[in-house]
């Protein structure tokens, strides 16, 4: 017998309308305004539009000839691949290891999840100290062990990708780890017991039982990782600022921010924001199709 709450629809409306209003005001209205801004002539933050661009698609045409944006796109794609391979990959390995131990599993869950709760700005400052040129932790360690004779500039063109990607990877491993551990906990123990009776243990158990049954959770993680990589901004911005080193360190997010907030190029920044949205929609659709969850699992 259904309760009154579910038979009568108005209480649902009461709950849904505020959320919808919130989305309309803070998401859809700014989104539509952003489309208009990208076609307008706006010379500074908050300044009124001076009319439409001539032609209206001038900013979108400029996207194709902007070498900094090309760099940003390339770096973002590299970040995306690394996110999938390292964040989800390492999270999967850690989840499988933690799932197989009986003592201390809760401790490891907390430890691996901990970086998520630290602000990205604090992490950026911390990693800045770790990779500092003069007196940084890494350089001191390598120097002390005799591996290097001179300090390494971890933010120069030869090293910046590693220095930028490592903290981002490290920060979010715990996020996917928790999702995957939850997925592992949902796999019935009966299956493992039945498999062990048939002599299936160790890696075979992972290969033939765990991974197939974890497929849908893994797919969700991969889609989240791909779409999340497009939004990475705060940690790289704190560590690398505006394009360090030598305009090679841009990501789509940091480049959009710099154009909009530092250079006051609001209309072009809006066009970059639209590009990020389009990329996000296309890539998440592709990811959803490639990693489509199966109903039979």
């Amino acid at each position, binding site marked *: 017998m259904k309760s*009154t709450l579910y038979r009568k629809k108005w209480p649902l409306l009461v709950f849904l309308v*505020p959320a919808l209003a919130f989305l309309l005001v803070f998401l859809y209205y700014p989104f539509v305004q952003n489309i208009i801004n990208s076609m307008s002539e706006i010379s*500074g933050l*908050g300044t009124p539009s001076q009319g439409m661009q001539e032609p209206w698609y001038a900013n979108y045409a400029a996207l194709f000839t902007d070498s900094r944006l090309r760099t940003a796109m390339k770096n973002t794609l590299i970040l995306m691949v690394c996110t999938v391979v390292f964040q989800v990959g390492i999270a999967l390995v850690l989840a499988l290891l933690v799932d197989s131990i009986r003592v201390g599993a809760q401790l490891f869950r907390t430890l691996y999840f901990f970086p998520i709760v630290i602000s990205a700005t604090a992490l950026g400052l911390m990693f800045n100290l770790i990779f500092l*040129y003069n007196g940084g932790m890494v350089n001191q360690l390598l120097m002390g062990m005799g591996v290097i004779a001179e300090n390494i500039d971890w933010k120069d063109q030869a090293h910046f990708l590693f220095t930028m990607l490592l903290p981002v990877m490290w920060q979010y491993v715990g996020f996917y780890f928790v999702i995957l551990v939850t997925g592992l906990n949902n796999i019935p123990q009966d299956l493992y017991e039945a498999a062990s009776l048939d002599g299936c243990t160790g890696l075979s158990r992972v290969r033939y039982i765990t991974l197939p049954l974890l497929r849908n959770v893994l797919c969700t993680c991969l889609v989240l990782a791909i779409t999340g990589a497009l939004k990475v901004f705060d940690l790289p911005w704190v560590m690398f600022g505006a394009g360090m080193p030598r305009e090679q360190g841009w990501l789509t997010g940091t480049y959009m921010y710099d154009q909009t*907030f530092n250079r*006051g190029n609001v209309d072009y920044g809006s066009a970059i924001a639209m590009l990020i949205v389009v990329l996000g929609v296309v890539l998440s659709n592709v990811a959803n199709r490639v990693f489509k969850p199966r109903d039979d699992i």
Partner: protein
Amino acid sequence: MNRTRMFSIALACALLISLLAGCAGTGTKHSKAPGGSTGSQSPAKKVELTVVTSYGGDDGNRKNYEDAVKAFEAATGNTVLDACATSNEEWKAKVLTDFETGTEPDVLFFFTNADAEPFIQAGKVVDIATIRSEYPEYGANMKDSMFAVAADGKQYALPSSGFWENLFVNTKVLTACGIEVPGPDYTWEQFLKDCQTIRDKGYTPIACSLFEVPHYWFEFVVMNNGTLDSQLDVPTLDSEGKLVMDAAAKKWIAGLNDIKDLYERGYFPANTLTATDAETVQLFGDGEAAFLIDGSWKVGYFTENYPDNLEDYAISYVPAKGDRAASEAIGGISMGYFITRKAWESPDKRAAAVAFVEHMTSDEVLSNFVTTEVTALVNGASPEGLNALQQSAADANANITGVVGAVQDAITSEAKTDLFGNVQNVVTGTMSAEDAVASAIALN
């Protein structure tokens, strides 16, 4: 059933209220006791004043500012919601955005040059004449002739302490390299020789982050390729958008190429293109670099952060070439306190805002902020007990033969960001100095 319904309604109401609360503006909290004011009207209630300044980060006057704010709060009972930050292009953009979006503070400590024009022209701050019509003693302790004049001919900001930019030297490093502290006759040729000697001895000659703060060097290399009188001339574009190759453009290009020359000789830190200003200043402070061009605010920074090493630092003169003398420097009064129209039109905040600015620009408070900088005070500041570095600055300033404002203050924020962002491209040869100047001027 009724309980469930009531519970769901209560939850929905709570959600709606929290949403509306989030959208609501931040009202002024009032308490019962009145605050004090030196103006003609006393604030009826204690108020919260929102104040934005650049006395955040590693500013040498940060502690003086915090002490002054505490003294104001104790004397008036008002509360100052302080939003200090470090002065850079990002901070300037944020301040301007706050004005555009209607979230400006009640009192703003900001640049009084072209950077302030957007909110002045928008009528978002109150001019001094208007304030004096109600508070005749407002800024009476200052020389009106030293107030910055806006494009509309009015004066808006009560000036704080002035600034100078000059060459800091680490005497310990120079001694180790057998080099004398440069005097007011320091030449560019001698400077290059000294840099090579310092480099050969294993020290970094020049502490500077070309990624973050190339503008200190830019000002002086431009003056080296021009004159003090023409320092504020800005290049222009012709009708086709091409750079006009006049004297202004030529000295900017030559100046950028001088920085490129220093970079190619290896006189900047090895990581100058990836280091922050804080990192390179530390290099200088720790005795690993010899020269640093910076401003008067850094005297306070070294006093606070390197109190035991102050004997190791001295203020010298930026090496000169061409028609410029090394005793000519960058300086002036570039910042001041604005009262926003929002605060002025608030019956509660008007008097408190005026009282706050009067307090911060009083003879007593400003004397704590300055050591060797110029002020607009009629009676002059009376700093006491100068330490070794402050005395060195005072001695150097005594030999200064000419001072001019920074040319970067004559161009827009967008042009500045573009120009200084491209310095790294110029020194590494991925962009010509001419293209960098043209690119910046196109945004001016």
